[in-house]
C-alpha cells in the first residue's frame, strides 16, 4: 500500500514538473524570435505561437533523436548482453537484457510519436523546404523508410514478446531476431542520415546528381559511423542511468548488488565506445573541411567555436567522470590497492590534457573581433598559437584516450583478480553515472544543434535558403538554455519510464513470481 502511495506521489510530482517546464521553455527561447520579427520579413506561412518556428522544430527534433538513438543504440547493448548470457550462463545478463528491452518497448512508441509530430510540424512550418527534401529523397520517404520502420517494429515486438517462448534451446533463435533488429535499426539510421547529411553537404559540381549521388554525399558515411558509435555510447550511458536510478531507489541489498553490476556493465560499454568516438568526430570534421573549408572554419574557429569549447569541457568531464567511477568501483574490490598510485597520477595527466584540449585560440566568440568587442590580451600570442592547433589538441586527446584505456584495463584486471563486493559501492558513484548520462545527452543535443547551425542561413547548404526571421545563428547561451531544458525534460520522462517499467508494484510482483528471467 505504501509503495502504491509512493508511486502516485512520484507520478503527480513528475506531471507537475512537466507542467512547470512547459512554461519555462517559453521565455528565453522566444525572446530573440520576437525581437527580430519586426526587422526581417516573415516568409513562413504559419508562426508557432509561444515558441517560434525554429525553436519548436529544434525541441521536437531533439526529442525524436534522443528516443530514436535509444531505440537504435540500446538494442546493440541488449543483444550483446543476451549473447553474454548464452556464452557465460550468467543470468544477470539475461535479466539486464530483458529489463532494458521493456524500457525499449515503451520508448519505441515515444519515438514514433515524436517522429510523426516532427514531420507534421516540418510540413506545416517549413513547406517549401519540406517539399524540396521530399522530392530529393522520395524513394527514402516513400519506400525505404516505411518498409524499414514497419520491419523494425515487427522485429522489435517479436523480440520482446517472444522472450519466454524462445528460451532454453530456442534461445539462439531469439538472439537471431535481436541481431536482425539491429541490422534493420542500423539500416534505418543510415537511410535517415542521407537527408540529414545532404542538408549540409549536397553534392557539388554535378549538373544532375542522381539519387545515389544525393545519398552518398560528402558527409554521409562519416555521419553514419559517428552516429553509430555515438548511439552505442549513448546506449551504455542510458543503461548507467537506469542502473543508478534503480540503485538509489532500491531498499534491499540484493537489488543493489544487481544494479551495481548493471552500472558497471553500462559504464564499460559507454566508455569503451567513447574512446574511439573522437576519432570518428575528427573524420567527420575533416570531410566537412574537404567539402567546404569555410563551413569547417565557421564551426571550429568562428561563431560556433565556443560551442566547441563547451564540447572540449564536456568531453574532458566525461573522461574524468568515467575514470572517477573506475576509482570508486575499485574501492569495493579487495586487492585493487596496488593500482591506486598510477590511477591518481593518471588523473593529473588527464586534467592537463583536458585543459590543453579546451584552451581556445582566443576568448571571444568570433574569428575576428566584432565592433566593440574587448580583445586585449584575449588571444594567444603568435608564438603560443600552436596550443590552439590540431597538433597540441591531438596530443592531448591521445593522452586522455590512452590513459582512460589504461585505467579501463587496470579496472578490468582488478575485477578479474580481486573479489568484488557488489552492492557495496559508494552511492556517490551512482550520481557519477547519472552525470555521465546527463553530460552525454547534453553534449549530443548541443552538437546536434551545431550540425544544423553550421549551415548558417541555409536549409540545404547553398541550395535552399532559409528566409525566415530565425535564420540567424543563435548564441551559445541561448542554445545552452534550450539544450538544458530539453535534456532535463528528457531525463524526467525517462526517469518516469524507468519507474513505470521496473519499479512499479506490478513489475516487482512479476519479478518475484516469474521464472524467467531470474535474478542471479
Amino acid at each position, binding site marked *: 500500500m505504501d509503495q502504491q502511495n509512493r508511486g502516485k506521489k512520484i507520478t503527480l510530482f513528475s506531471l507537475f514538473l512537466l507542467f512547470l517546464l512547459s512554461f519555462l521553455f517559453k521565455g528565453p527561447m522566444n525572446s530573440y524570435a520576437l525581437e527580430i520579427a519586426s526587422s526581417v520579413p516573415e516568409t513562413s506561412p504559419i508562426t508557432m505561437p509561444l515558441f517560434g518556428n525554429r525553436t519548436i522544430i529544434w525541441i521536437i527534433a531533439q526529442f525524436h533523436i534522443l528516443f530514436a538513438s535509444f531505440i537504435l543504440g540500446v538494442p546493440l547493448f541488449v543483444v550483446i548482453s543476451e549473447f553474454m548470457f548464452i556464452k557465460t550462463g550468467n543470468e544477470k545478463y539475461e535479466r539486464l537484457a530483458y529489463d532494458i528491452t521493456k524500457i525499449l518497448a515503451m520508448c519505441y512508441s515515444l519515438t514514433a510519436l515524436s517522429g510523426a509530430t516532427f514531420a507534421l510540424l516540418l510540413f506545416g512550418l517549413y513547406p517549401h523546404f519540406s517539399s524540396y527534401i521530399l522530392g530529393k529523397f522520395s524513394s527514402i520517404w516513400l519506400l525505404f523508410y516505411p518498409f524499414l520502420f514497419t520491419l523494425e517494429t515487427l522485429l522489435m515486438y517479436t523480440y520482446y514478446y517472444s522472450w519466454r517462448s524462445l528460451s532454453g534451446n530456442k534461445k539462439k533463435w531469439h538472439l537471431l531476431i535481436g541481431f536482425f533488429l539491429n541490422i534493420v535499426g542500423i539500416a534505418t539510421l543510415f537511410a535517415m542520415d542521407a537527408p540529414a547529411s545532404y542538408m549540409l553537404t549536397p553534392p557539388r559540381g554535378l549538373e544532375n546528381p542522381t539519387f545515389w549521388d544525393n545519398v552518398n554525399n560528402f558527409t554521409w558515411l562519416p555521419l553514419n559511423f559517428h552516429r553509430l558509435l555515438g548511439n552505442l555510447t549513448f546506449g551504455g550511458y542510458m543503461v548507467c542511468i537506469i542502473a543508478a536510478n534503480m540503485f538509489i531507489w532500491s531498499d534491499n541489498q540484493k537489488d543493489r548488488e544487481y544494479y551495481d553490476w548493471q552500472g558497471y556493465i553500462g559504464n564499460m560499454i559507454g566508455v569503451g565506445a567513447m574512446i574511439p568516438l573522437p576519432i570518428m568526430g575528427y573524420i567527420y570534421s575533416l570531410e566537412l573541411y574537404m567539402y567546404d573549408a569555410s563551413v569547417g572554419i565557421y564551426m571550429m*574557429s568562428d561563431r560556433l567555436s565556443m560551442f566547441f569549447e563547451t564540447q572540449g569541457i564536456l568531453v574532458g568531464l566525461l573522461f574524468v567522470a568515467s575514470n572517477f567511477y573506475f576509482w570508486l568501483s575499485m574501492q569495493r574490490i579487495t586487492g585493487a590497492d596496488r593500482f591506486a*598510485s598510477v590511477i591518481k597520477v593518471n588523473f*593529473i595527466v588527464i586534467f592537463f590534457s583536458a585543459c590543453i584540449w579546451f584552451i581556445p585560440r582566443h576568448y571571444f566568440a568570433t*574569428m575576428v573581433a566584432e565592433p566593440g568587442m574587448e580583445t586585449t590580451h584575449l588571444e594567444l*600570442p603568435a608564438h*603560443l598559437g600552436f596550443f590552439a592547433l*590540431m597538433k597540441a589538441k591531438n596530443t592531448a586527446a591521445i593522452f586522455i584516450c590512452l590513459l582512460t584505456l589504461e585505467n579501463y584495463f587496470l579496472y578490468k584486471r582488478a575485477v578479474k583478480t580481486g573479489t568484488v563486493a557488489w552492492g557495496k559501492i559508494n552511492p556517490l558513484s551512482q550520481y557519477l553515472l547519472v552525470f555521465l548520462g546527463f553530460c552525454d545527452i547534453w553534449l549530443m543535443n548541443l552538437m546536434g544543434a551545431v550540425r544544423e547551425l553550421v549551415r548558417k542561413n541555409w536549409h540545404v547548404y547553398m541550395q535552399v535558403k532559409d528566409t525566415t526571421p530565425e535564420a540567424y545563428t543563435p548564441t551559445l547561451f541561448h542554445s545552452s538554455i534550450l539544450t538544458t531544458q530539453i535534456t532535463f525534460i528528457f531525463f524526467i520522462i525517462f526517469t518516469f519510464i524507468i519507474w513505470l517499467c521496473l519499479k512499479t508494484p506490478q513489475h516487482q510482483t512479476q519479478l518475484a513470481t516469474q521464472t524467467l528471467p531470474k535474478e542471479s
Partner: protein
Amino acid sequence: MINKKGLRQKVFWLVFFNLFIWILCSIDLKTSLVGALPAVFKVVFTAFSLCGLIMFLIHDRNLLSDEYSVPKRLFHFFLYYFLVGFGAIFVILWLTMGYFGFYPVFIWTVVIYAWLGFLVIVAMDLKPIKEQSGLKGFTNMVVFYLVLCGGFTAMGYALPQYDPQYEIKKLKGDRGDLSNADQATLIKVGGDVFRDFECFNCHNTSDGIKKRGPNLAKTDIGGGENIKENIVDPQKTISKGYDLPKIRNAMPDYYGKQIKPLELKALVEYLKNVRAEATISTKKMPEGWWNDAGVLAEGKNIFEGKMFDNPKSACMSCHGKEGVPLSQKARDFRDKKYMDSLSDKKIFDSVTNGIFDKDGEPTLMGGYSLLLSPAQRWQVIAYIFKEFAGGRKGFEVAQSAAEKEKNKKKLWRPWPWSLL
C-alpha cells in the same frame, strides 16, 4: 603522517610521465596532426605535474581524517589545501606560463583546471556518502538533475558570446545604393562584405596567426580584374604555395553567385586598398624583412624556382643552390665585400631590370619584373643576403639586436616578469 610508500610510487609515475611526454613530444612524425611540440608545451606539463606532486604531498598527510575534530579538519583544509595547495599551484603556473608570455586569462584557465584536479584527488578519498532509497533517493536525483541543469546553463553563459543583433543585421544585407558610390564608400562597404562573408576566416589583412589562405596584405593579389577572378573562379589560378592537394580547393567557388555585382566591386576596391596600404618600396628593403623568417622562407622558394613553371628561371640555375655559381659569369653571392658595397636600390633594380654590360648590352641576368612582384623581389634578395653573404651589412648585428629588443617588447609578460 605521510604514506611514504604511496608517495614514492606517485613520484615514480610522475617522473615516468614527464619522461614519456618529453620524449614523445620531441619526435617529429612529419604530420600536422601529431608530433614534435615546442618546449613550452613540455615545460607547462612539467609545471602542472609539479603541482600534482604538491597535491600528493599535502593530501598524503591525511589531514582530513576522522582522528581530527571537525573544526580542526576545516582548519586543515583552509590552511593546507586552500592556502598552501591552491596558492602553490597558482604561483608555479603563473611564474612558468608568465615567463613564456601567456596572457593572464590563459594562465587562469590552466590554474583552474589544476585546482579542479586537486579537488577531484581530494574527493577520491572522501568517506562514502550515506545510502539512499525510495522517495528520498528519487528526490535527491531530481535535485541533482536541477543542479546539473544550473551548472550546464551557467557554463553556456560564462563562455564568450557574440551579439545576435549583428547576425540579424547581416541577414538583412542592406548596403544602400552603390551604383554611384564614391571610392571611400566602396572601400567601406567592401570591408563590410569582407566581414559578412567571413573572408577573414581564411585571410589576414594584417599581421596575425597564420591562416589557411594567403595574407592579402602581404601577397601580391594583382589588379582589380585579377582579384575579381580569384573571388569568382578561385580554382582558375591558384597561388604558388597554395596548390597542395589538401588546400587547393579550400577557397569556395560560390562567392560569385552569392555576392551581388556591386558588392563584389566594393570588395575588390577594399582588397586593392588593403594591398595599397601595404605598398612595397622599390628603393629600400621593407623594415624588418632582412631577418624575417617568413620573408626568408618565401625568398628560398623563389631562389629555388618553386614559384616558376619553368625551373630554368630559378636563381639557383645559375647561382647554385648552395651559392656556388654554376656559371662562370654568374655572381658569387658569397663575396660579402662586394655584396655589401651594393645599395638596396641597386640590387632591387638589378633583379627588376636585369644587368647590362659596359656597352649597354643585356647579360644572361635578365629582369624579373614580369615574373616576380616587388615583394617577391625583396624576399629573394633578403634570402640571398642571409643565406650566402652572412647577412646584410649593418643589419646582421644591428638588426639582430634590434630584433631581440623588438621581440622583448613584443613578448608581453605578466608580473613579476614584466619588472625584469
